[in-house]
């Protein structure tokens, strides 16, 4: 019995040991889990700090006009960040921002975010063909690979195809219904989106009374910007006792910041649906911003009070319970355009749209998907037919008048460019050529942007214009005051990197005389062409990436192949252009 004593004790010791070990392992596991969760959280914090560094870099670059080189360590919240800015090429800077937890010395966690930014104008070509009030005329057997948005009629001959959607907006009247503008000393700035003298002038409105009843097609506001304010909303509101009625929002539109520059220009705003207005009734145009004392807007204010059918007011918050509205002395410059011009899409035979069609009147089309209309005749619709639809609202062009003036101002600020005859290895631009340029045949040269030609641009055949590689993935522009006349086999090429392109833009006005701004001959021509107030005649047998014009006459057998990358182009900009992130370059390291 003596030799068998203590068995319970041994069993107890073993059991206690097992319990102790499992308890310790459980505590160790909990500790590991706790540390891992903490680490995961700190990784997120470090990434957020690095992104804060990127935001700071872009803001500082715009505030200092590009003189910002980064910072070694800035403490923020529970950690710090550092920023390094380096040049990638003439138009692009690389920003590497690193977030540290808890600090740069002995960090527990660090994450680096790298982006590229460029000083430029972001331009979004969303449609293969975008046409203004001049409309789109298609001859025979043309192919548009992509979608078409036209603010005017689309008419077509035989055998045409649009592979995407076709939109025909309700046509605006050619002249503004209401307008107020000013010149000289009576024109002052009214600040929007900033605390000015203790006043939070964040929501600013101008009232007006339309002279005629109908749909409001678009408004234009005369604006410029300081810094780089964000995209904002513009609303049309009813009136309530002499102030905007927060419960009476009739329409919502978007004011694209990229269309506004550092110089005043009328900026078009269209709406998701065009509101119906009654003549001689008061309505308000409201700019709705948020406060940023470094990035804000200026709305031109006419102190002469020449506009008699409305007044301006500002509020710190238009949508609060009982909004406070304060009077402004003057008239904020604007234009309103009413709709009412009937529009349509009409073919003769075999006019095929592979996508949806949106138009007031559809005539002689074969539609593979759905149709949205008021009237339809002689057409087949494979998808659903949707009668009684409101006319689509017009679309704002991807570039504003102010963008174009900004490029011209930049070119004029540089030494003048002389051109007499094409030579090997020639580089033209940046700058202004005072007169016309006739390239003749076989001229291959490099373009630096912006190149501004005060006369006409003429090319006969086999010319090749290439944007200088120093612009990297950014794009460039050739601005022409007169006509652009191109014969055959001419190419306008970007840098070859990314989606870079070289765009030829004519400001020639075709609206009165119907003479084309850009005339392109037959066969082998390529490029992106833009006529802000003019007509493009794209010829036959050519291939384009994109066409934007007040009016387009596509004759026979041309093709337009829209590239999706064109939806986020960054054009090297004028002196007031702002730095912005190049889409697609965000990387976490």
């Amino acid at each position: 019995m003596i030799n068998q004593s203590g068995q319970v004790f041994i069993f107890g010791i073993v059991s206690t040991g097992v319990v102790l070990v499992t308890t310790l392992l459980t505590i160790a596991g909990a500790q590991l889990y706790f540390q891992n969760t903490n680490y995961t959280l700190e990784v997120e914090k470090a990434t957020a700090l690095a992104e804060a560094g990127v935001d700071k870099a872009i803001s500082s670059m715009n505030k200092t006009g590009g003189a910002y080189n980064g910072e070694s360590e800035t403490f923020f919240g529970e950690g710090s960040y550092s920023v390094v800015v380096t040049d990638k090429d003439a138009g692009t800077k690389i920003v590497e921002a690193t977030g540290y937890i808890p600090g740069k010395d002995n960090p527990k966690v660090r994450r680096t975010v790298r982006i590229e930014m460029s000083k430029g104008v972001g331009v979004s070509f969303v449609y293969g063909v975008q046409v203004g009030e001049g409309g789109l005329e298609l001859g025979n057997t043309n192919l548009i690979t992509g979608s078409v948005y036209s603010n005017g009629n689309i008419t077509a001959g035989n055998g045409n195809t649009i592979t995407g959607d076709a939109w025909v907006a309700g046509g605006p009247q050619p002249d503004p219904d209401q307008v107020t503008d000013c010149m000289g000393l009576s024109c002052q700035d009214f600040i929007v989106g900033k605390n000015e003298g203790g006043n939070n002038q964040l929501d600013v409105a101008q009232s007006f009374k339309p002279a005629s009843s109908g749909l409001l097609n678009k408004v234009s506001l005369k604006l410029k910007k300081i810094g780089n304010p964000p995209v904002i909303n513009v609303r049309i509101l009813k009136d309530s006792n002499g102030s905007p009625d927060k419960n009476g929002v009739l329409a919502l539109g978007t004011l694209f910041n990229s269309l506004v520059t550092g110089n005043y220009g009328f900026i078009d705003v269209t709406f998701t649906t065009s509101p119906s207005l009654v003549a001689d009734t008061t309505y308000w145009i409201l700019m709705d911003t948020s406060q940023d004392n470094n990035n804000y807007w200026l709305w031109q204010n006419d102190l002469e009070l020449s506009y008699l059918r409305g007044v301006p007011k500002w509020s710190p918050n238009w949508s609060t319970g009982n909004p406070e509205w304060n009077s402004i002395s003057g008239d904020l410059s604007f234009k309103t355009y009413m709709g009412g011009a009937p529009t349509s899409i009409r073919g003769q035979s075999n006019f095929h749209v592979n996508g949806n069609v949106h138009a007031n009147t559809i005539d002689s089309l074969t539609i593979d998907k759905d149709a949205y209309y008021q009237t339809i005749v002689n057409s087949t619709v494979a998808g659903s037919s949707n009668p009684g639809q409101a006319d689509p609202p017009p679309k704002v062009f991807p570039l504003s008048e102010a963008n174009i003036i900004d490029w011209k101002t930049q070119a004029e600020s540089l030494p003048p460019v002389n051109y007499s005859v094409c030579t090997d290895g020639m580089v033209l631009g940046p700058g202004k050529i005072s007169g016309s340029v006739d390239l003749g045949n076989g001229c291959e040269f490099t373009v630096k942007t912006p190149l501004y030609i005060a006369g006409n641009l003429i090319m006969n055949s086999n010319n090749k214009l290439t944007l200088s590689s120093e612009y990297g993935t950014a794009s460039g522009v050739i601005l022409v005051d007169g006509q652009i006349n191109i014969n055959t086999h001419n190419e306008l090429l970007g840098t070859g990197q990314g989606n870079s392109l070289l765009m030829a833009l004519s400001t020639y006005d075709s609206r009165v005389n119907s003479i084309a701004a850009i005339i392109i001959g037959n066969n082998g021509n390529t490029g992106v062409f833009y006529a802000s107030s003019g007509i493009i005649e794209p010829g036959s047998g050519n291939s384009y990436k994109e066409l934007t014009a007040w009016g387009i006459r596509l004759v026979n057998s041309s093709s337009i192949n829209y590239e999706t990358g064109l939806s986020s182009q960054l054009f090297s900009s004028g002196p007031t252009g702002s730095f912005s992130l190049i889409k697609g370059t965000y990387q976490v390291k």
Partner: protein
Amino acid sequence: MKWTKNLSGGFTLVEMLITISVFIIVGVLLFSILVNSTGFFYQQSSRFNQGLGINDSLQNIRENIKEADLVSLSYPSTGTPEYSSNAANLILRFQSIDSSGNKIFNVFDYIVYTVSNGKLYFKVYPDTQNGSARKSADKILSHNVSAVKFEYLDTGNSAVAPDLADKVKVTLTLSQKAGLKFETNVATSEANLRND
């Protein structure tokens, strides 16, 4: 009087009963402690392992969603797709990078997240033929995956088709038998496509 113990007399019945009772009570108590302790250990180990798996998986998915430029409808994007983006699979498209880490425009790599046999797989398909230096991968992010759900949202948090998504929400459910019970952990995360 001198007291002497009769060593040859053995234990009395009462002594034996008390000893056996104590032995049984102590034994049952110790056994119970052992069983409970072991069960608790398995349960907690399972919970920690799942937590670690969820942390690592969601961090990986979140970072890659941020860097992606598009949710691809399928992979390969041409021909017969091996994977399609839906509630159970996520296919992200990336611009390829060169050996210096610079992005190569118009050349794309693809990352696929998919669940097979209770494992969450992370697969990288670089376009090496067009110069991508991104490393290919085919590894398991999490074991014991009972469900994964990818939701494709626009900026207003409305559900959209995968290729139109501005952000992706992922819900990961891990389930593992711990003792007699199943230990289940559910975690959700969301990230915006920064390069969209």
